């Protein structure tokens, strides 16, 4: 059974982590000079790059302009060499379109769009290496990129995945755990208020376990938010040291 391999008797997972342990998160902001905001994040072996352009005038279809708030436009794509099997189309397939829509929903909840009526904010995310938790890495990278661009948000948006094996919730799934066929829940959270921006779960789960699983995912998200906060503060220190303040 898949459960026996994913969590050993001593409580260790496939990569040696404990059940509630997150993968190592490393992030950098301001990696590209040309974009308004950019960030790069590594969560274990998953590497994601996010770039933000805006706010600027609505391009292409003027009809998309909203009179009282900004339009958020997201595109999710994967590099062709990001997965173990080479991917033929970087974007445009159904999964990428669905992910782009999810990202749009998530950020519409967090960004203060009513400060920029009749304008557009573009968020482009690229996965350079995929090892599970693609959506979470994208959301975390995009949060940092939006902060780097100076666009005001209600709160950090932190995302993490969680799974359920042998009555134990697992936090931050890697690819082998996600594709093992067990439950996988993706959660995007605004940590300060505890508001959920996006919640998605695949596969079957008994309703008694849902509470535990969500709690585990929320704790994991709060852990990620601490790391992101650290990264932002460090980046600000570096930048203000350079400008001599």
């Amino acid at each position, binding site marked *: 059974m898949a459960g026996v391999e994913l969590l050993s008797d001593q409580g260790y997972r496939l990569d040696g982590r404990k059940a509630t342990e997150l993968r190592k998160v490393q992030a*950098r902001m301001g*990696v*590209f*000079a*040309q*974009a308004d905001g*950019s960030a*790069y994040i*590594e969560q274990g*072996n998953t*590497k994601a*790059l996010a*770039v933000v*352009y805006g706010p600027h005038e609505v*391009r292409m279809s003027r009809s998309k302009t909203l009179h009282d708030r900004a339009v958020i*436009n997201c*595109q999710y*794509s994967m*590099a*062709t*060499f*990001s*997965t*173990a099997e*080479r991917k033929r189309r*970087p*974007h*445009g397939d159904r999964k990428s379109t669905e992910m782009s829509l999810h990202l749009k929903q998530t950020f519409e909840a967090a960004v203060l769009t009513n400060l920029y009526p009749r304008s557009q904010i*573009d968020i*482009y995310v*690229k996965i*350079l*290496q995929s*090892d599970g938790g693609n959506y979470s890495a994208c959301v975390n990278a995009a949060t940092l990129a939006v902060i780097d661009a100076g666009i005001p948000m209600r709160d950090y948006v932190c995302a993490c995945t969680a799974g359920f094996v042998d009555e134990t919730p697992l936090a931050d799934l890697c690819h082998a755990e996600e594709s093992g066929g067990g439950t996988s829940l993706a959660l995007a959270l605004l940590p300060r208020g505890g508001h959920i921006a996006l919640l998605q779960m695949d596969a079957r789960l008994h309703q008694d376990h849902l509470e535990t699983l969500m709690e585990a995912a929320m704790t994991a998200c709060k852990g990620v938010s601490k790391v992101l906060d650290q990264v932002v503060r460090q980046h600000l220190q570096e930048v203000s040291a350079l400008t001599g303040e």
Partner: protein
Amino acid sequence: MATVQVSEAEKVYILHGVRDDLRVDGRGCEDYRHMEIETDVVSNTDGSAKVSLGHTDVLVGVKAEIGKPRPMVPHEGYLEFFVDCSANATPEFEGRGGDELGVELSNTLYKVFNNRSSIDLKSLCISPGEHCWVLYVDVLLLQCDGNLFDAISVAIKAALFNTKIPKVHLSENEEGGKEIELSDDPYDCMRLNVENVPCIVTLCKVGYRHVVDATLQEKACSVASLIISVTHKGTITCVRKVGGGSLDPESIFEMTEVRQDPPPPYSSSCHLPFRPSQHISTGFPVRRSNCNRFV
């Protein structure tokens, strides 16, 4: 390429500067920007490299897969190129916007590599007529600030140098068919000889002179450019003219002559990352860092 608006006054300023061998950022007409090359950046590819040339960033990943050789050449493997102009570079590339440029770049790459000597394709053969290695070279454009061809060609050369192809053992199974076994040892692999891989140099005609490594502003002032791919021995593998303007035949000869000068230091400096013991003084600084970090 991503376009940038340049006013008439700016154009005149750039033209006058180029005429006096002084460009906007202080370089001479034949100077390159600062270039940084990093290899082995993406771990689940067989070879990868990232090149930053000024503000142009290119990431190349090479994946080796087993496939069927082409019918005309059963003793050789082959390379497949794919260029992805991602929306990261500029919002114009969102959706299908970057496809046109991507197709143009990959077609040029096919032409550049379409000759006997660039890569030893026979070494990619496993069993003639049945199995061969196919190298999928995927180029990802991260930032676009002019001079894409040069950056892409250097990145491809670095990525091919970094490529490790697992060694193959052929054996016969019970029915008499061939079985392929890949060795499990990560160090038991074949490396490619990239000495003859050409590097592309783009020359833009600005006014009456030509400049090397043009930025987007300089490109907006130029009428036409010449793309020449040259190996370190000085062999030219492909020449293409792009742009709406026309070039005088004499200026083309002048440009190719200039090409003989910088290419030896330029393409041999491409060997700098590959032969750390050899120090070659070059016209432009090339820094090599072989760390696994992406930025």
